[in-house]
């Protein structure tokens, strides 16, 4: 799991925020702190589906479920359905 956390953190820093130097860990609030916007959140959701090899159901996920990297993986574990 920690590898997946690290992979996601690196993705957010490098590809979403474009700030590799920013301090980020699995408990850093992303949405509520305004670090990422809704469009960036969509990119992160898609990455989360790829990393966890799941499909997240539309209508069940809200930004507050994706506020930290830890929460993202908890949400994927709770709601994600295995990909066919």
């Amino acid at each position, binding site marked *: 799991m920690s590898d997946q956390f690290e992979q996601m953190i690196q993705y957010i820093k490098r590809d979403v925020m*474009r700030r590799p130097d920013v301090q980020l860990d699995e408990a850093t609030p992303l949405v509520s702190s*305004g670090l990422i*916007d*809704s*469009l960036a*959140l*969509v990119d992160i*959701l*898609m990455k989360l589906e790829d990393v966890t090899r799941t499909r*997240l*159901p*539309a*209508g*069940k*996920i*809200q*930004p507050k479920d994706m506020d930290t990297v830890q929460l993202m993986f908890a949400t994927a574990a709770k709601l994600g359905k295995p990909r066919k």
Partner: protein
Amino acid sequence: MTHALFALTSELTWYAGGVVFVAAALVARRTTHRQIALLLACWLFYATWGVGFLAVLVFSSIVNYFLGTALRRRVTPARLWIGIATNIALLVLFKYGVKSLADDAGIGAMARLARPIGISFWTLQALSYLFDTYREEDLDPSFLEFCLYMAFAPTVLAGPISRLSSLLPQFRQPLRPTTADVSEGARRVLLGLFMKLVVADVLATGWGRAGGVNAGFERASAGLGGLDVWFLAVGFGFQLFCDFAGYSHIVIGAARAIGFRLEENFDRPYLSPTPAAFWTRWHISLSEWIRDYVFMPMTMLRRGRWWVYTSLLSSMVVVGLWHEAGPTFVVWGAYHGVLLVLHRVGQQVNRSTSYRGLRLGNAGSGVMTFALVSVGWLFFRSPTVSQAVSMCRSLMTFRSYGELSLPFSFYAVTLTVAAGWVMASISGRCLELVRTYWQAAETDPVHPVALAPTPVYVTAIDALDYFAARRWWWLAPILIVIGVVGGFALTDLGATPARTPFMYTLF
């Protein structure tokens, strides 16, 4: 005369009843007694706009409570869709259908049910309850609590659009407002009244007989110069902001004074550096609602950049439609959707090509965003799309910029309000920056001002904190004096602006 007096007495009696019930809620020991007292106060307050309206609100509360209960018993997409369809049907029926039905059939009594005040707001609250229930959030309101959520007086007329997850725990706690709550609540109410009664109303109707935004838009059909159109767009933008943000201050403050915390609805929107940032600061409760319940679910249905942009555009059209099912609002929503998409595409192009040609900086980007948002207000305010397009055409016709046909006082008032608002908005931030800079002097040995005597800094920082925390107490009177003196100097001494209703209670 007798009828008017009776109506006034009757309305005052209802308000007095509401106050008595709020007082009862504040002293009630049992949760149920407190909730009953609050609900009666809220229903009485809402009924002052019309008993027919209250009937529609109660009906919607009953229907949605049972829809939610059915959904909680068995969570299926079909049950959610039934809930969504029912709410949209009720919204369309009572906001538009009943009025035309009553007109067609000539039934006056039926017209009393048409366009219940706040229906667009409490319908979204009902829908968010259904969506959250579908998401299997831990929500278990009693019927009493759900009715209170729907009718809650501080939110029922024009938001902020609240979530049950935020209000339910507060409904279940004793109401124990502290002195700080009452003081902060009173400050917000006074600030809201100033924004609405002084700033928004003066902008709307102008000072005295001179004419303001309303008269300007009426004249627009006869043709206006480019500068006039800019002034109208900016003037209306500030009028709408001061009207709606003022309203939000009043209700958030009133709720705070009796111990409730509501979400903020505005955060210095006209200082936004990008269109995307604007929508995180303007009517926050609506934009978050649309993000959570329209944009996110829609965007997750498919993959691909084009689908994300389609979802964004569609969500903004829904924002427009929510205000009013008319072409001007659809165009306004679509315009903002296009702005958001173009901004995102620009960001992507910048990133993928490392293009560094057009760099506006934060201030330039902020001015550009403000100008684009102001152009959007022309569609929001104009009665027809063709009038808004014609006003946009004036903006593009540079030779028309020399034609100034609006009253001189309108330009003065608009400039005063815009400058005053920017001063009020950035003064706190400037004081914060100075404070941070000075505070660094205490810990940083190589700081340029580190050698100065410390007591001076302590006093200065205390003074900065004092003025930063109370800037509306010293800045607002300055602005009022500037506005009043300016207004008197420009027009009749005895003239006062006319009163206008809160604009968002009309949606």
